[in-house]
C-alpha cells in the first residue's frame, strides 16, 4: 500500500461517513474494519477529517459517525432545517425551529444517563410539542403577571412558543408550515430523518444511535457556550473575544455565508 492508496482509502471512508445511506455497503464495512484495526490508517483518517472540519465522534457497528466543526463546509445551515428548507425564515421562525430541535432531543434524552444508553426511543411530533408546551406553561405560571413584555429585547423565549397554536392547517388540510407547534416539530423530525438520524414509521419516529452521539456532542457544545456567556463581562478578556467570534460564526450560519475557513476569507477580502 502506498501513501496515495492510503489517502484515497481515507478519503473514501470519510465520503461514506458523510453519506449515511451507505451504511452496510461492503466496501464501507471493509474500510471500517481497517479503521478499527489499523492504527496508522485511523490516524490518517482523523487528520484528513480535521482538514475538512470533521470530528470523528464515535463508531457504531456499521457507521463512522463524524460531526462537523462549526466552520466546516459540511455543517448544516439554518436554511436547511428551518421548516423544510424555506430560505425566507425570520427571527421568530428560526428560533421556533431551534426550540423544536432542542425539544426533540430533550424528549428523547431527558436525563444524563439516557445520553449514554443505546436504546431506541419512539417519538411523535405531538409528544415533543406537548412536552415543550408543558415546560413553557410552567415558566408562564412562575412569571409575574404585570410585567410589560412588549419590548422585543426582554421578551422571554417561552412566550413565542406559547403564542403558537398547537396545530394549524391549510385549506387543503395539510399542516401549515411554520404556523404551529406541530408543524415546527414535524419539520425537525423530517429533517433529522433526511439526515438518517431518525427512522420514520407511520407518524412515529425512532432514534438511531448516531442521533444520540450527535446530540451528546451538541449538548456539550451548547453547555459550554452557555457557561461562557454567563460569565460577567470583563474588559478585553481574550475569552470574551473568542466567545464573540464564536457567536459571530454561529450567526453567520443562518444566511449560509460560511466559508470553509475564517482565515482564508480574511485574505480574500484584501
Amino acid at each position, binding site marked *: 500500500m502506498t501513501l496515495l492508496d492510503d489517502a484515497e482509502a481515507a478519503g473514501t471512508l470519510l465520503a461514506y461517513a458523510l453519506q449515511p445511506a451507505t451504511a452496510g455497503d461492503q466496501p464501507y464495512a471493509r474500510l471500517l474494519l481497517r479503521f478499527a484495526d489499523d492504527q496508522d490508517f485511523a490516524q490518517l483518517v482523523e487528520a484528513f477529517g480535521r482538514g475538512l472540519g470533521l470530528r470523528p465522534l464515535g463508531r457504531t457497528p456499521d457507521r463512522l459517525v463524524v460531526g462537523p466543526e462549526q466552520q466546516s463546509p459540511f*455543517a448544516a445551515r439554518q436554511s436547511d432545517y428551518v421548516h423544510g428548507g424555506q430560505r425566507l425564515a425570520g427571527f421568530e421562525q428560526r428560533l421556533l425551529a431551534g426550540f423544536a430541535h432542542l425539544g426533540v432531543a430533550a424528549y428523547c434524552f431527558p436525563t444524563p444517563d439516557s445520553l449514554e444508553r443505546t436504546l431506541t426511543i419512539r417519538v411523535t411530533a405531538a409528544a415533543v410539542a406537548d412536552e415543550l408546551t408543558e415546560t413553557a406553561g410552567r415558566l408562564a405560571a412562575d412569571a409575574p403577571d404585570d410585567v410589560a413584555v412588549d419590548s422585543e429585547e426582554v421578551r422571554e423565549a417561552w412566550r413565542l412558543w406559547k403564542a403558537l397554536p398547537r396545530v394549524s392547517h391549510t385549506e387543503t388540510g395539510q399542516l401549515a408550515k411554520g404556523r404551529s407547534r406541530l408543524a415546527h416539530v414535524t419539520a425537525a423530525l423530517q429533517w433529522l430523518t433526511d439526515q438518517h438520524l431518525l427512522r420514520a414509521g407511520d407518524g412515529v419516529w425512532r432514534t438511531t444511535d448516531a442521533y444520540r452521539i450527535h446530540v451528546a456532542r451538541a449538548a456539550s457544545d451548547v453547555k459550554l457556550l452557555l457557561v461562557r456567556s454567563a460569565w460577567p463581562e470583563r474588559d478585553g478578556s481574550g475569552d470574551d473575544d473568542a466567545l464573540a467570534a464564536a457567536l459571530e460564526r454561529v450567526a453567520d450560519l443562518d444566511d449560509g455565508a460560511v466559508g470553509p475557513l475564517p482565515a482564508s476569507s480574511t485574505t480574500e477580502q484584501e
Partner: protein
Amino acid sequence: MARGTLNSDHEAQRRSRRVKALVRLEPLIDMIDAASRGWGSHQPHRAGRYDVRALAEAAIVAVVEQMGIHEAGGASFDDVVDAVAQTALAMYPGDLDDARDVARWVVDWLINAAEGGRARTHRYTDPADGYAWHTLDVTVLYEELSPSGDEVVLRATSEAVNSLIVAFDLDLGDAQVAAEAILDVALASGNLDKAVTSARQASQTSRMYVDQLTGLLDRTRRDVTTVDWSDHVPALIDTARTHLSLRRRAEQTLLTSATEIRDEQRDPTRRRAAAEVVELVDGCLTRHDRLLTRLIDARQVFLEEQRRQRISVISTPAAISIPAELLHPLLAGPATEAEAPLALFTTVSSGPVAPRRHTLASLVDQLLAPRRGGAELDDLDDDTGELVAIPTAVAFDDATWEAARKVVETVEVPTRLSRLLVVARDAGTHDGLVALMVLAERTYGIGAGRRIEIDGAALNDPCWGGDDLLVHPTNAETDGPPQREGAA
C-alpha cells in the same frame, strides 16, 4: 460530622441498595395499580380473567430467555407478545384476541411505550446520603435497533432482572449462594420439588451474569470511554472470577449429588425431578464456563479496544441534562439570547451535510425530486387527468426553414452574408434563420458542404453584427478560386 461508625456506613449502603431495589419495582407496582383501575372501569371483564403480575413475569422471562440464546440480541416484540398471550390464555382460555390485547398492553407498559420507551424517573431518599432526595432512571424492558437498523429487539436491563428475578438486597453472587444452599438442603432432605425451583433460579442467575458481562464488553467495543476500566471493571472482573471458580466447584458438587439421587431414587417422580436438576445444573456449568472464558479474555478485549479507539474517539461529552441545563434556561431567558445557542445546537446535532453538487445528472434528479420537507408532495393531486400530447416546441416552422434554405441555395457565385440577409428580408423570409444556417455550416459543417469564408469584412446590417461571411456556391471547388477581390 459523620454520625455513624464504619459499620453503620456499610449498613447504610445495604439499606440504600434495598431502597433502590424498591424503586426499581415501582413500574410493576404502578402497572398492577393501573390494571386494577383501568381494567376495572374500561374492561371490567379482564379483572377476573388475568393476573397482571404473572403476565409481567412471563414477559420478562420471555425476553431474558432470548437474550441468553442470542448473546448480542434480544427478543422481537411480537415473540414476547405471543409468549405473554399464551400465558394469558392459560389463565383464561378461549379469547385469543383479548389475550393478545392484554399481552400487548403489558409489554407496552414494561417498555414504557406511552412515553416512547424512555426511562421512568422516580424520586427516593437515600439512606447512605442522609436521606437526601435523589432520582433514579428505571427501565424494565427496552428496545434496541439491530446493527443493520432494520430490526427492533427487546432487551431487559440487568437492574430490572436482578431486582425482579433475583432478589432485593443481594447481589448476583449472593443470590446464587442462597439458591444453591437451598438446593443442597433440599437434595439432602429429599425435597426435590423445591430443589428444582432453586436450580431454575440459579440457572437464570448465571444467565444474567453472562449477559451483564457481554453488555459491558459490547459497550467497550462501541466506546471504550463509557466504561470505567480503571477501577470499577477490573475489581468487578476479579471478584467475578474468584466467585465463579468457587461456584463452579459448588455446582460440581451439586451435580454429583443430584446425579446420585437420580440414579438411586426408586420413586419415579423424584427420579425425574433429580434428572431435571442434573440437566439444569449442567446448563449452569456450561454457562459458567463460557463466562469464565469471557472473563479471562476481558482484559485483552479492553486493551485491544483501547488501542483501536484511542484515535477514533476524541472525547466523551460530559453528562448533561438537556431539559434542565439547556431547554429550561433558554426558554426562560430573553428570546434574542436564545438564537445563537439554538443555532449551534441544531447545526451540531444535525450531523454533517454533504455539500450539494450540481452536476448535470444530479441537477436533473434534484429538479425532479420532491422538495425536502415532503409537505408539498401531498399538495399534488393524485388524479393526473387525461394525458394530452404536448406539441414539441419549435423555434421555426417547416415553411420558414424551407424558405431560408432556398435563399441560401440560390447562391451561384460567392456572395456576402449581408446580401443574403437583404434577399431574405425582401422575400419575407426570416433573416435570422438564414444567418443561423450560414453560421452552422461554417462552424459545424451542417448543410450542403459549402465553403464559408471569413475574410475580415465586417457585417454592415441594421439587425446583425459580426463578420460579413463569404458564402461560396456548392460547386465552388470545381469553379476555381473564389472571387475575393470582386466581393471586396
